């Protein structure tokens, strides 16, 4: 029946407005602010239809990531690991639209020391370059899509792209694609790639762990625990 203590702790909370970022802009010197359930945990990617890629773009990207990181006896390749899903979700979000970048003109070509100076955000770069690449592939193969080529033919296209032998307006596109593919393969599974922690298992990275005090002294010994992601691992559940 008696509940004043509860209310008293929440009375203190009245001083601080609840915003999506946590705390009010004016923080007086009467204690560190606190709210229960405060924080900004990441929102896991949900499986489902492509959010950015068209069906054709998705087929192309899935095929590309599967050559960049092929499936073999060491483990799943980029497609099975969800790299294309990862890239799709990234391009559909603030990364894709370069919300955080400085995008004011004038846009002028720079030196290699000056970084990307184009007006296009990653989403636009993919859209543009995939279209150009698709045209190039169709041209050279009597109308086939990239994903219809043989693995060896696909590898050749990618190698040519990497070497700058294919004329794309966006000269940095291959590097961007490779970078995003690797990100997808090794980022936490909540972002859509690294499915079942395939990337981490390939190399022996234990994932989102936070305490290695019991292993710092164990020199030259393999770490025994399986990787864990931000949303956990199977051992957290009872069978």
């Amino acid at each position, binding site marked *: 029946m008696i509940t004043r203590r509860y209310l008293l702790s929440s009375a203190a909370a009245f001083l601080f407005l609840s915003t999506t*970022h*946590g*705390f009010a*802009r*004016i*923080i*007086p*010197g*009467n204690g*560190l*602010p606190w*709210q229960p359930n405060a*924080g*900004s*945990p*990441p929102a896991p990617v949900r499986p489902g239809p492509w959010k950015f890629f068209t069906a054709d773009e998705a087929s192309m990207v899935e095929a590309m990531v599967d*050559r*960049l*990181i*092929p499936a073999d006896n*060491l483990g799943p390749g980029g497609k099975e690991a969800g790299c294309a899903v990862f890239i799709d979700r990234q391009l559909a979000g603030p990364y894709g639209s370069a*919300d*955080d*970048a*400085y*995008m*004011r003109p*004038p846009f002028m070509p720079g*030196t*290699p*020391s*000056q*970084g*990307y*100076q184009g007006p296009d955000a990653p989403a636009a770069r993919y859209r543009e370059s995939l279209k150009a690449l698709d045209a190039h592939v169709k041209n050279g193969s009597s109308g086939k899509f990239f994903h219809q080529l043989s693995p060896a033919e696909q590898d050749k296209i990618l190698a040519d792209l990497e070497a700058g032998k294919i004329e794309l307006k966006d000269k940095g596109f291959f590097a961007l694609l*490779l970078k995003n593919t*690797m*990100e997808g393969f*090794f*980022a*936490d599974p909540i*972002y859509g790639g690294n499915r079942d922690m395939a990337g981490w298992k*390939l*190399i022996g*990275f*234990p994932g*989102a*762990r*936070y*305490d*290695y*005090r019991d*292993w*710092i*002294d164990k*020199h*030259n*010994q393999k*770490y025994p625990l399986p990787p864990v992601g*931000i949303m956990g691992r199977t051992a957290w559940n009872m069978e």
Partner: protein
Amino acid sequence: MARKLPRKDVVVIGLGWTGSILSYELASRGLDVIAIERGPWRDTATDFPPSYAPDELRYAVRLDLFLRNAQETLTFRNKMSETALPIRNFSGFLPGNGVGGAGVHWNGQTYRFLPTDFRVRSHLEERYGKSMLPDDMTIQDWPVSYDELEPYYDRFEKLCGTSGKAGNIRGKIQQGGNPFEGPRSSEYPTPPLKQPYASTLFAEAARKLGRHPFPQPASNLSQSYTNPLGVTLGQCSYCGFCERFGCGNYSKSTPQTCVLPALMRIPNFTARTESEVMKINLDSTGKKATGVTFVDSSGEEYEQPADLVLVCAYSFFNVRLLLLSGIGKPYDPQTGQGVVGRNYAYQTTSAVNIIMKDKILNPFIASGAIGMIVDDFNGDNFDHSGLGFVGGGYISASQSNGRPIETLPVPEGTPKWGAKWKKAAAETYLSGYKLGTHGSSYSYRDCFLDLDPTYKDRLGRPLMRMTFDFHDNELKMSAYITGQLAEIAKAMDASEIVASPRKGPYNSTIYQTTHNTGGTVMGNDPATSVVNRYCQSWDVSNVFIPGGASLFPQNHGYNPTNTVGALSYWAAAAITDKYLKNPGPLA
């Protein structure tokens, strides 16, 4: 029209390390202090708890805690003959943002500069002759000596609880520490971190070659510690998510873990976040500041009157604020006149990548400042006669980053993708390692900061422009100390060694460090400095820049934070002991 707020005794611009320390020192003495920070409030349990802090994509790759270029950025060029273009995405250096500033996501490497560093020009000219220094090298002696600053280094280290092993206590060399360091008044507050395998092998090899390895001083604590403000920190758990990340278990020394719990108990202190100071306001004489004007996230402008203005932002932004406020004479590289923006410097780093085939190095068991260091080739610790350069740096086996998106070693010549890459990555990850050098970056006439003529920020004000490139001196120095490091790598019996000394031109897209120094240099001569030895503006005596690497006349071969912290305490003492008793120019 700016809304005028009630007057405060002190306005602090930026609530990072310097802002937190100064706010505490002044508010705890009863002054009314308001700190204005343009980023958000940050707190361990709500912003980087262990449950989602270890997210490499979010924090290390997408840079969630850092300054957004859309909010503010710089333009960059190597040479004055080039046109500076905007840094549209940060990658080569990463300015922080938010309460705690870069103190939230630093690595914790906590070094003092050498006694000779503080009188670098005099020392080098004495030892090697004036002609040893290139004509366009603008290094200068600091206006404080190591001995004067020592008690404040001590104070900052005790605030942090830094873990390490002293090498020189009051002139007596100690076994296991750095024999080259300046004399310390006391041992480190906590013992050194435990070392992983690779740095242990490095230290053994270094000793074989007659070098003097010692554990890197780390503000990632080896054990729980309560600092002089009564704040308790936890023990580092070697999680490997240190630089670029906030610490989830209170074991990295940051404003959050060292100062804010005590500061936020002081009723005459207020923090105002997501509010950006636009300029420091001056009275009609131009010699006295009346306060600051800031804008909040709704775009509303406010005027905060205050008797004392402390400029505690990140180095670049200290410089920019002074330029936009008309405080001090802007530097003109053509004439060499002026001071604001002069002597911008950086850090000259390099790597020796090795593979220790069949050895399990567990690179993911890491901490921001764990590692073994050799200081034999730093500063003027070695004889430079006939070498053709001055300066130096430490060489290290430092293990802070085993995260796979950023760190996935493969043997040289391995393709970057495909089946061969996959096999090499799987085989090499646990056995690859990056040894490093961390060298000085001396100041030059043509390396400076000023306001860009073309590009503007979201509020219509000119961006800061950086003009910087490596000079021959630094590249020669890098080649030399990288060579020394490669010798140690050979003595480690590494199966593959790839040495990559720093080569020009400076590429602003490749991450090297976020050690951007200079621009508001401290000195004894107003012709070559922006603030006096007490960090007080020569032009406006109630404006101080009481910390920040923008004070450095040049950068030496060490990480800057300990020196920034020491200068913060040094300036705080000057303000409380001298200025408040008798406001006016102190020098």
